[in-house]
């Protein structure tokens, strides 16, 4: 059902598959690329937000000394001043812009202050006093689910539920020789994009509103601003500024940031700048959902994988925001890329009184992949099998059914990634028998306390939004050729550092036979570009790519028609090769593509077209726990080599081998950039990063000196291995790469730690304190 251009090797390509220089590099290395904080507007005002100091409280009274504020030139706004609806739409519409009666997390916005300087806006805080009555709060998702008295979301605090059901899981456990059962905990991870959140709202009186800002999904912001201001969507323009990293953190949060700025601008009828400080950003914006996962695996001594049972409790924080979608991905990825006939996954998203958690690269999957891949290793260990061999027995191959019953009939490169990663890492040579704790202590006595270890994970990634997000799985594109032979294209997906502009430009160049250097992307402005759906779920290259292919195909036909007329050849007998238009049968070169475009222009032919794409169908039946969850799957094997100090518990990472089946590498250089960066972020998740909350629910690690991401000195050698098993639905066979580099690093790391010193962790990150405590526990258990 999909048109796939046959695409065999790089020799044929004009742009796709090449390491072409990034389109955005020139202005980024000079610092000229304008970020939100680099912009200024005449008469701009600044916004300060008065936020809840409590995790859960009733607002009794908001007293604002308007007289003094007026004399100072400061304007205050509360929920009552919102001209439209006090709702930030994401999925469930439970998230207000400004709290009115109840605050549900520390840092929740209650009042905004707008003034000519930030200093003045901050000073004006003292003229607003908010009276609260604290009410009991809950922070743990297991505790919050069905909480008898504390109610945050409807009656049971469960804002979303997904399940997987396959076979008979109890029968499966009964048939198992060994059953492994553990409870795991994963932390809140902060995106720590280097550019903090920020938006500037510029009103045109009360007629229309333009919002500039750092964001992933301008069309989300457009809807929220329109609904908050009670304006028609068409009167709200959102312009994305150069975005300094996002990783999911700028998916839904700019709805809030942009809307707060827009409300301020509406009230004062002047441009309003709202740039978050690092502390404000970490304390009050989304992070990766912390989770509790109960995981039970049954195997036979021969190595059969008999049953998998998983319970997932995602801590969503105070508002659902993206939780139903995040939970869907967690539920679908919970049993892993394996064949297993008996599976039961029960997944709950539970509201608590922490900051609302949200999208973060991997989107719910890293939380279940860490336990899942730990369990696979423990299962292999329990029957004395090499963990890579054990996985190889069970991984999905072409024609296999996933645990949720989807038959995958093509593009399954997992086995290839496993083989390549194992080969390049020297797995069998490096993998030494896991020591007993007595051996570790014996070596310590001889002064040898550093031990190496190597660990593995095999994962899959359901590409794009899948069945839960299918309504957004469409994409638009405009393409226009210019009389000088250059091409401009517009899509609504965004560049945030991942390299999308570059990759899409390569696709357009390839499709039209135009030099890559002559292709330009229009900056994303919702009034000028089509809605291509959100820039999430590793979908931009594929979905915007497909829409661009659709547009380019139309444009090619328009060009061929004019050429056919002029050269008196058959329009169906024309092709593009090496930037030239030629007759297929005679292979005669007719003219360059640039000249053909000039010809179309002179002939008053159509030079601008729109493309559209709808994702292949997906369907998930949550009652049955079965369905075609995603259009396609990407696959990956990670191998991590560590050195552990068994006395101190420090874990140094020596190497990461990351083998990814991406279908097709449109640009191997930017692809490697994604693998390297994602792997390091995954390493951060597994080894270093953890948001610490106070017992009152406030973020304690609120700056980059207490929330620690890896520096150059923690970074191992990262070996990117690209596997291309094409997917017929993707442009040139591509499947996306944004998220999977992060997803499987944590368990490969903890499995390597286990191999080095013989201890297992049920909680990440693998801090020295945790590794050391696990070693001490084992010493006590085994009384050595």
């Amino acid at each position, binding site marked *: 059902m999909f048109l796939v251009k046959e695409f065999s090797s790089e020799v044929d390509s004009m742009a796709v598959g090449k390491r072409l220089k990034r389109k955005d590099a020139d202005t980024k290395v000079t610092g000229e690329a304008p970020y939100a904080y680099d912009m200024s507007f005449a008469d701009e005002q600044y916004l300060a937000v008065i936020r809840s100091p409590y995790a859960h409280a009733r607002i009794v009274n908001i007293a604002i000394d308007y007289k003094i504020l007026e004399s100072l030139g400061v304007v205050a706004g509360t929920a009552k001043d919102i001209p439209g609806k006090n709702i930030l739409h994401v999925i469930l519409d439970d998230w207000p812009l400004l709290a009115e009666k109840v605050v549900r997390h520390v840092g929740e916005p209650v009042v905004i202050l707008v003034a000519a300087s930030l*200093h003045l806006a901050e000073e004006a805080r003292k003229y607003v006093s908010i009276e609260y009555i604290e009410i009991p709060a809950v922070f743990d998702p297991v505790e919050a689910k069905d909480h008898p008295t504390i109610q945050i979301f409807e009656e049971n605090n469960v804002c979303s539920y997904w399940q997987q059901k396959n076979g008979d899981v109890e029968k499966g456990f009964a048939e198992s020789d060994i059953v492994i059962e553990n409870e795991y905990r994963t932390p809140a991870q902060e995106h720590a994009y280097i550019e903090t959140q920020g938006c500037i709202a510029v009103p045109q009186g009360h007629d229309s509103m333009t919002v500039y800002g750092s964001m992933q999904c301008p069309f989300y912001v457009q809807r929220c601003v329109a609904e908050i201001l009670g304006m028609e969507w068409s009167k709200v323009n959102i312009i994305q500024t150069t975005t300094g990293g996002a990783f999911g953190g700028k998916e839904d949060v700019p709805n809030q940031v942009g809307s707060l700025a827009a409300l301020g601008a509406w009230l004062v009828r002047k441009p309003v700048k709202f740039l978050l400080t690092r502390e404000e950003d970490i304390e009050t914006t989304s992070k990766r959902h912390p989770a509790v996962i109960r995981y039970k695996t049954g195997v036979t001594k021969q190595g059969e994988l008999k049953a998998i049972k998983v319970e997932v409790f995602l801590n969503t924080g105070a508002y659902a925001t993206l939780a139903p979608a995040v939970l869907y991905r967690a539920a679908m990825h919970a049993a892993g890329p394996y064949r297993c006939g008996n599976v039961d996954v029960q997944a709950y998203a539970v509201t608590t009184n922490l900051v609302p958690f949200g999208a973060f690269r991997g989107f719910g999957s890293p939380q279940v992949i860490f336990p899942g891949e730990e369990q696979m290793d423990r299962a292999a260990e329990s029957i004395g099998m090499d963990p890579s061999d054990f996985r190889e027995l069970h991984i999905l191959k072409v024609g296999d059914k996933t645990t949720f019953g989807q038959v995958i009939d093509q593009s399954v490169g997992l086995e290839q990634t496993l083989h390549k990663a194992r080969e390049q890492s020297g797995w069998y040579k490096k993998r030494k028998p896991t020591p007993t704790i007595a051996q570790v202590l014996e070596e310590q006595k001889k*002064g040898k306390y550093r031990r190496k270890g190597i660990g593995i994970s095999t994962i899959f990634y359901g590409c794009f939004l899948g069945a839960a997000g299918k309504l957004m799985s469409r994409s638009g594109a405009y393409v226009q050729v210019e009389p000088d032979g250059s091409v401009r294209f517009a899509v609504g997906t965004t560049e945030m550092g991942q390299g999308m502009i570059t990759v899409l430009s390569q696709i357009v160049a390839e499709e039209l036979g135009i030099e890559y250097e002559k292709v330009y992307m229009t900056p994303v402005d919702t009034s000028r570009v089509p809605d291509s759906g959100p820039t999430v779920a590793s979908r931009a290259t594929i979905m915007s790519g497909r829409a661009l292919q659709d547009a380019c195909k139309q444009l090619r036909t328009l060009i061929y028609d004019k050429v056919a007329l002029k050269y008196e050849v058959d329009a169906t007998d024309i092709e593009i090769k090496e930037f030239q238009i030629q007759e297929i049968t005679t292979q005669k070169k007719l003219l360059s593509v640039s000249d053909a475009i000039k010809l179309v222009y002179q002939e008053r032919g159509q030079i601008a077209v729109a493309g559209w794409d709808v994702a292949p169908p997906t369907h998930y039946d949550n009652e049955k726990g079965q369905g075609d969850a995603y259009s396609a799957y990407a696959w990956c094997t990670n191998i991590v080599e560590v050195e552990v100090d068994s*006395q*101190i*518990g*420090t874990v140094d990472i020596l190497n990461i081998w990351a083998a990814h089946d991406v279908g097709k590498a449109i640009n191997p250089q930017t692809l490697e950039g994604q693998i390297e960066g994602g792997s390091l972020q995954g390493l951060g998740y597994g080894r*270093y990063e953890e948001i*610490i909350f106070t017992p009152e629910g406030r973020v*304690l*690690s609120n700056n*980059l*000196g*207490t929330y*620690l991401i*890896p*520096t*150059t*000195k*923690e970074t191992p050698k990262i070996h990117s291995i690209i596997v291309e098993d094409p997917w017929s639905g993707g442009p040139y066979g591509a499947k996306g790469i944004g998220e999977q580099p992060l997803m499987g690093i944590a368990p490969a790391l903890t499995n390597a730690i286990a191999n080095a010193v013989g201890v297992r962790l049920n909680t990440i990150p693998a*801090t*020295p*304190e945790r590794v*050391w*405590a696990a070693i*001490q526990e084992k010493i006590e258990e085994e009384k050595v």
Partner: protein
Amino acid sequence: MYSNEILSPTSLKEALAIKDQYVNDIFPLAGGTDVLVMVRNKLGVWGESPVLLNLNNIPKLNFILETDSNIEIGPLVTHTQLLESPIIQKHVPALIKAISIIGSPQIRNLGTLTGNVCRASPAADTLATLYARDTQVQIQTVNNSKLVPIKEFITGPGQINIPENGLVTKIVIPKLEGYFGDYISLRQRYALSIVVVSIAVEALLSKDRSRMDDIRISLGAVAPTIVRATKTEILLKSNAFTKNLIEKAEKMIIEESRPITDIRSNKRYRKAMTGVLLGRILREILSH
């Protein structure tokens, strides 16, 4: 961002006069890596936007001197200067080891040793070695100058014992001949991070290497200030230096240390690590 008034004298005399006049309403500013962060984050007295006494226009406060028995370091000397100084490299190698892992090149190019001393953080990398060296701090006022032992100068986390009109004008590190000096720190990250536990040792073996003639052990991040492990020091000085003694010392220092749980680590781990780190340094000495 900063609304503090700043006074920038060009001589020490002038600086002392200003301090004498403003007393507790003015705070000295050298490298600023800590002071400016404290002011920005409105921490404690820094939140009141105090007047800042900028010392950077007094070039005479920038010196590293070697005298017969001491190394003297001026208040404007940065970490990078110390790292590059042959005097420090020769006489206080453990300090070089400590400084080389502070922050990042950016921070080391700005931050000063005197700033470290005056900020009195129990986790400061440089302080453990300064304690092991029985370093002295020179405090000057308009009409007075005195040397105070560092352990009397620092009284608590962020707290120092200085007259309200006084400025620190010199750090005096005694030379130690024939000593083996070492410093080990554990941290959450290898760059841009703060100490979880640290230990500095200065040890003098007897000629026949059978005993410790002297040993000074100081611990960082296990108490409100850097502390000397005096009981462990006594144990090590009063017995034959053997493997067996090292094991006893490991146990004793764990016993002796009183760390807390905070954002960076927990009490149990910190306590255990004092033993592991001391053991490593002592075994190194024994094997040489």
